[in-house]
């Protein structure tokens, strides 16, 4: 009694999650591009696009619910379904953070930007994108080492975040740029949080592979 249909349903669900990941990547690229080029139209597109991410989120959520109800997965199947359930939430949160970036972009309409900070966002955006890719690939390939490498990538994005804060302190004497900068510090924070969610996805992969859940870092330290 090899459970062929069950395996197909599991594969399908995993594919749905990867699709959601691709949508989040598009949203992220759009959000970073919008903020760096002050493109308000693009910002609106990113905000609207979140409906697509949410729809995909519900798709995965419902798939998980159905699988749990009908197939009663156990052992590694159970761990996979639980990991998908949590990864789904992390991806959806990343999508929301992209929306926040887009909204902040609109809020700073007409304020003079700081080129150094924009460069910083570009870098953080690229790092966040890379982290999402690594997180999704580590899940797909059940690669615990790759999943754990997210911790080092997260350190890089955290450092970039600190550089943004330092730069903001430097430009704080300029009133106009200060308002822009204060809003932009939240953009930096959003990108940094996206990195954290990617690490969480990696933790789920490690859980899936080893059967033991542990956080890569202890937040209390």
């Amino acid at each position, binding site marked *: *009694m090899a*459970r062929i249909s069950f395996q197909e349903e599991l594969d399908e669900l995993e594919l749905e999650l990867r699709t959601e990941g691709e949508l989040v990547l598009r949203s992220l690229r759009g959000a970073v591009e919008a903020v760096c080029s002050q493109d308000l139209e693009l910002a609106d597109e990113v905000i609207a696009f979140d409906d697509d991410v949410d729809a995909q989120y519900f798709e995965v959520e419902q798939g998980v619910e159905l699988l749990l109800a009908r197939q009663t997965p*156990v*052992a590694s*199947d*159970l*761990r996979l379904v639980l990991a998908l359930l949590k990864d789904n939430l992390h991806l959806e949160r990343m999508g929301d953070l992209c929306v926040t970036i887009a909204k902040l972009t609109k809020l700073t309409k007409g304020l003079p930007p700081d080129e150094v900070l924009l460069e910083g966002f570009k870098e953080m955006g690229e790092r966040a994108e890379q982290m999402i890719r690594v997180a999704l690939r580590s899940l797909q390939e059940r690669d615990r080492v790759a999943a754990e490498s997210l911790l080092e990538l997260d350190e890089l994005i955290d450092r970039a975040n600190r550089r943004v804060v330092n730069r903001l302190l430097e430009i704080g004497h300029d009133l106009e740029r200060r308002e822009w900068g204060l809003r932009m510090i939240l953009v930096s924070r959003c990108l940094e949080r996206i990195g954290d969610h990617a690490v969480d996805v990696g933790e789920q992969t490690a859980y899936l592979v080893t*059967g*033991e859940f542990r956080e890569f870092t202890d937040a209390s330290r």
Partner: protein
Amino acid sequence: MADEQLTTIEPMSLADIAQEQSDKSFTNREAVFEVKDLAVDYSGAIAIREVSLDVYKNSVTAFIGPSGCGKSTFIRCFNRMNDLVPGAHIHGDVLYHGKDLYAADVDPVEVRRRIGMVFQKPNPFPKSIYDNVAFGPRVLRLRGSLDERVEKGLRQAALWDEVKNRLKESALGLSGGQQQRLCIARCLAVEPDVILMDEPASALDPISTTRIEDLMHDLKREYTIVIVTHNMQQAARVADMTAFFSVDVAPDGNKRTGILVEYDRTSKIFTTPADKRTEDYVTGRFG
């Protein structure tokens, strides 16, 4: 096997250590049975071999595995039911409270009183409900009020309320689920220590199955329960410890022998089994 697995695991968190200790406290319970290197053959054909495990007091222990893995043969070793099978030979040790169950001075009838058995198909005697439960105490001439014994047995088997007004009616008029609980009551009436159940719910409807499972949960406070089941979710629901048996096929493809693959806490077997074969079985990819 379990020890090998542990050595490859990385340093444990505090939560893991706490979990590990609570697990130990479970397996530190008194062992009712200690099985050491057991094998059973039927006229030379080996049905099961190299089985070693302990069954713990006041717990439910489940044996799962595909057909032909020897789990029914194995459970019958616990009350010497295989004695009744011509050509059956038992090798290795089965200790019951530390005493050799197969020693020459052990009376098989006394063994079966203390270690009762419930079978797949309810098998009440074609007698009244009362006489079914009273049968054992009468035969064994147990002292005390027979009425009280019958009532207690029926109450413990969660059947009393349904039959108290028709104790003199035939047991064959009961539903399948009621008949099975009657068999459990009959087993309990002789005050056993252990109850062996060989697929006790596989002939029952889902509601009756739930009642039997609830019953196991209640009964383990006073008794030790060992169950063979084909229904993995049943094992997951009711058992504290689960043993997975499989079939070892000889290279020539002819000889098929039951072996014990993995024995651990049920929570472990159904979340992170140590052996790939267990994983394949519980996830439904094999068997």
